C-alpha cells in the first residue's frame, strides 16, 4: 500500500513537471486578437462617415439595471428594429451583485455579450481580460443617427467621456447616465435639534452633527465595508480638492498652450491623467500618501467624524443604510440620485401602513465643503459636487458583431432617442422624481423633477476613479484599501501606519498599471522626469 502510494506520488510529480516543461516551452504569448469583422477598426470607422447602412444579424446586450432601464431598453430595441428590421437583439439582465466578476469570466471564456452596460470602476477589470474594445476611432466620426452633425463624442456632456478614459487615455466606455451624490438629511430631526439651515462648510457640518447627537440622534450610520461608499466618497472628494493645486505639476503632457484655471470647470476638458504621469507624480511625492501633507490632512479631517458615527462600524453593513435612515436611526446619509425613488417609496409605505407619525420630510444638498479654515493650502477651491458618470456601454473585444453593436450603440445614444426614453421614464415613474441624468447633451427633463445642484464648480482632473476610494485599480489596491481603512477606523492602525500601507499599495497598483498598459506607456517620459 505504501509502495503504491509512493508510486502515485512519483507519477503525479512527473506529470506535473512535464506539464511545467511544456508550459515553459509554449507558455508565453502575446497574441493579438483577430479582427473578426472583415474591416479593421479604422477602416470600419471611416466607412461609417455618418451614413446609415442596412445591417442584419443577431446582437446580445446585457445590463444590470432591469428596474431602471428595462422597459426603456425594450422600447429602444423596438425603435431600432423599425430602422434595422433585419437585426435581432436579445436583451439580458443580470443581477448587480458580482456582475463585473461574471462578465469578466465570460470575457475570458469568449462567451460574453456583444454590448454590455458597465460602471466606470468595472472597466479596468474588463481590460485585464482584454475584454473590451477601444472606441476612439469611432467616437471621432459622426453618429449617423444624430442630427447634431458633430462627431459622436461631441454628443456627450463634457467632461464625462474624458473622465471615463482608461489609464492609457483610451475611451472604452461610452457614457450613458450620470449620478449626483449628496447629503440626505431628515428635516424634522434638524428642526428638533435646532438646525435652521443645512450645513455648507465642514465646520458647520461638525457643529450640526454635534447638535443632532445632543438631541439624541445618530448623525450618521456607516459601514466600513466595500458596500458602503460614504466614507470613501468624503475622503476622495477632499483629496481631489486638495490635490487640485498640483494639477499642472501632475499633468505634464497636455495640449499646447494649456493652463489650469481652477475656477473654470471647462479648462480641463480634453485633458486626462495617464498612468505614466500618475507614476511620475507619485514618485515625486506629489500624491504619495506617505509624503503628501494634503493626504495626511484629509485623513485627519475625516477622522473628526468618528464621534458622530455608529459604534459598530466594522460589523454594520451597507445594505442597512436605507432602513436606518427611514427608521430615523440615522438622520443623515451620503447617497445618490438613484436612491430618491426608494427613499420616497419606503416613506410612502409607512404612511400606507398607518404609521404616518414615523414619516418625515427629507431633502438633499451637496456635501459640506472644507475651507481654508480646515486646510490653508486649499487655494484652488473647496469640494466639487460629487457628480459624475454612473455607467456606460462597452463593446466586447471578441464580439463577432462589432459593427452591429456599434450601430445599435450609436442609435441608443442619439439625442433624439435618449429624449424619447427619458419621456418614457417620466411617464412611468413619479413625476416629482429626478432619475439619473443622461450623459448625452440636450435631453429635456420634466419641469417638476427634483432639482439637484450637480454642476462642477472647479476644474478637476480626477486622480482616482469616480465613485471609488482613492485607489489605482479595482482589484488588489481596492481590497487592500478596505482592510487598511478598517484598521484606521478601528484604531488598529495609527495614521502613520495607514499612510505607509496606502503608499505601498498605491505604488504597487501603479506599477501593475504600467505593466498592463506597457504598450501605451512612454518610458522615456518617465525616465526623463525621474532621473
Amino acid at each position, binding site marked *: 500500500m505504501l509502495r503504491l502510494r509512493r508510486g502515485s506520488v512519483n507519477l503525479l510529480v512527473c506529470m506535473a513537471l512535464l*506539464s511545467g516543461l511544456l508550459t515553459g516551452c509554449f507558455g508565453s*504569448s502575446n497574441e493579438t486578437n483577430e479582427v473578426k469583422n472583415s474591416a479593421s477598426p479604422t477602416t470600419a470607422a471611416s466607412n461609417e462617415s455618418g451614413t446609415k447602412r442596412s445591417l442584419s444579424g443577431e446582437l446580445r446586450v446585457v445590463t444590470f439595471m432591469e428596474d431602471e432601464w428595462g422597459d426603456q431598453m425594450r422600447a429602444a430595441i423596438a425603435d431600432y428594429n423599425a430602422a434595422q428590421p433585419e437585426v435581432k437583439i436579445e436583451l439580458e439582465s443580470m443581477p448587480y451583485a458580482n456582475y463585473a466578476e461574471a462578465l469578466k469570466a465570460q*470575457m475570458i471564456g469568449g462567451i460574453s455579450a456583444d454590448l454590455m452596460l458597465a460602471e466606470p470602476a468595472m472597466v479596468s477589470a474588463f481590460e485585464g481580460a482584454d475584454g473590451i474594445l477601444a472606441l476612439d476611432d469611432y467616437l471621432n466620426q459622426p453618429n449617423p443617427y444624430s442630427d447634431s452633425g458633430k462627431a459622436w463624442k461631441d454628443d456627450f456632456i463634457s467632461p464625462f467621456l474624458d473622465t471615463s478614459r482608461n489609464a492609457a487615455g483610451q475611451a472604452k466606455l461610452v457614457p450613458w447616465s450620470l449620478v449626483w451624490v449628496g447629503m440626505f438629511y431628515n428635516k424634522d430631526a434638524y428642526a428638533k435639534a435646532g438646525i435652521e439651515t443645512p450645513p455648507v462648510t465642514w465646520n458647520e457640518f461638525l457643529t450640526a452633527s454635534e447638535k443632532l447627537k445632543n438631541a439624541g440622534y445618530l448623525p450618521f450610520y456607516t459601514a466600513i465595508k466595500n458596500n458602503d461608499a460614504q466614507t470613501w466618497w468624503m475622503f476622495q472628494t477632499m483629496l481631489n480638492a486638495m490635490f487640485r493645486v498640483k494639477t499642472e505639476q501632475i499633468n505634464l503632457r497636455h495640449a499646447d498652450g494649456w493652463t489650469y484655471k481652477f475656477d473654470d470647470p471647462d479648462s480641463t476638458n480634453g485633458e486626462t491623467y495617464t498612468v505614466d504621469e500618475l507614476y511620475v507624480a507619485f514618485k515625486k511625492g506629489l500624491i504619495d500618501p506617505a509624503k503628501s501633507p494634503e493626504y495626511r490632512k484629509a485623513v485627519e479631517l475625516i477622522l473628526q467624524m468618528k464621534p458622530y458615527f455608529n459604534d459598530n*462600524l*466594522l460589523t454594520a453593513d451597507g445594505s442597512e443604510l436605507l432602513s436606518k435612515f427611514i427608521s430615523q436611526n440615522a438622520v443623515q446619509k451620503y447617497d445618490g440620485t438613484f436612491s430618491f425613488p426608494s427613499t420616497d417609496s419606503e416613506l410612502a409605505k409607512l404612511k400606507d401602513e398607518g404609521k404616518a407619525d414615523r414619516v418625515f420630510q427629507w431633502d438633499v444638498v451637496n456635501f459640506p465643503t472644507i475651507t481654508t479654515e480646515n486646510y490653508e493650502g486649499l487655494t484652488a477651491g473647496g469640494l466639487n459636487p460629487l457628480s459624475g458618470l454612473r455607467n456606460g456601454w462597452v463593446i466586447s473585444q471578441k464580439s463577432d458583431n462589432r459593427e452591429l453593436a456599434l450601430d445599435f450603440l450609436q442609435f441608443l445614444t442619439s439625442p433624439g432617442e435618449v429624449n424619447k426614453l427619458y419621456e418614457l421614464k417620466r411617464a412611468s415613474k413619479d413625476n416629482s422624481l429626478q432619475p439619473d441624468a443622461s450623459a448625452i447633451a440636450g435631453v429635456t427633463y420634466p419641469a417638476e423633477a427634483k432639482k439637484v445642484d450637480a454642476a462642477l464648480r472647479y476644474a478637476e482632473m480626477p486622480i482616482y476613479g469616480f465613485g471609488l476610494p482613492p485607489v489605482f485599480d479595482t482589484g488588489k489596491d481596492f481590497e487592500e484599501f478596505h482592510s487598511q481603512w478598517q484598521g484606521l477606523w478601528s484604531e488598529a492602525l495609527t495614521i502613520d501606519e495607514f499612510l505607509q500601507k496606502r503608499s505601498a499599495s498605491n505604488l504597487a497598483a501603479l506599477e501593475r498599471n504600467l505593466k498592463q498598459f506597457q504598450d501605451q506607456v512612454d518610458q522615456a517620459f518617465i525616465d526623463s522626469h525621474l532621473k
Partner: protein
Amino acid sequence: MRHTLKSVYKARYLYLFLLIPFAFIALFIFYPFFRGFQISLLDWSGGNRTEFVGFDNYRELFWNEPLLGRAVRNILILAVAGILQAVGISFLMAWVIHHIRSAKSKYVMRIFVIVPSLIPAIVGYLLWKKFYEPEGLVNRLLGLVGLDFLQQAWLGDVSVVVTAIVFAGFPWLNGANTLIYLAGFLQIPKEMYEAAKIDGATSWRTLWHLEIPMLAGQTRILLLLSLISLLQNYDNVFLLTRGGPMDASVVPGILLYKNAFLFGRYGYASAIGVSLFAFIFILSLLSMRLSKESGEKVS
C-alpha cells in the same frame, strides 16, 4: 505481456464501459489539475498576454505573501474544530441514539438529526451572520443569562472573529456522519455487549474499550473525508466575513478567490490552488498513516 493482453481482451467489455467514467475523471478532475499547475507557472490576467515566469508565483506565495501564515493558521484552527464537530459530535449523537431504548424515540431522534442536513449550509451561515450582529441573538442571549461582559462585535473584532466562525453552526449536527456511525453501532454484535456486561464493564469502559475500537474504520474514513473537505473549505468564511475584518479571518480559499476573481491574477491564484492541493495531500497521507498505526495498535 501476452498474458496481460489476453486477459484484457477477455474483459474487453468491462474496460470499454470503464472508459467512459475514466474519460470524465480525466476531463473534469485530472485536466483541471494539470491545467491549474500549468497556469501557476504563468503571469496571466485572463487576457491574451501570458508570460512564463517559472516558479515566481510560488516564490512570491511562500516568501512574500503577508497573509499566508495567517491563512494557514486559521484554516488549521477551523479544520481541527470542524473535525471535532463533524466526527466527535456525530459519534456522540449516534451513541445517544443507539442507546435509546424506545424504538419510537430512536426514530424521532434520527429524523431530528437528519433534518438540519436538508437545509443548505448557505442559509445557516447567513442566519448566523444575523445572530452575530451587535443586537443579534447571541448578544441578546448573553445579556439574558447575565453574561453581558461577553457581548461584543463577534464578526467585527479581530481577536474573536475566528472563534465566532468556529461556533457558527452550533450544535453542529451532521446527519450523514451520524447515520454512518449509527450503522456502525448496529453492526456491533449484541453478544459483545453482553460479554462486557458479564465482565462488569461500566458504560464508560464499554464505550472506550468496545465501541470506539469497533468503530475505528468509520472514524478513519470520516476523519480523512472531513480533513480534506475542511482544509479547502471557505464558504463559511466568505459568507460571514469575506476574510475580514482586516484579513483577520482569511483562509487559503479566500486568498485564492480574491487573487483570481478580484485581482485578476490567475497564475498566482493557481499557485495557491496547487500549493493547497499539496498541503492537503500531505496531511491526508499523514492522517491515514497515523490512524492506520493506531488501528494496528488497538488490534
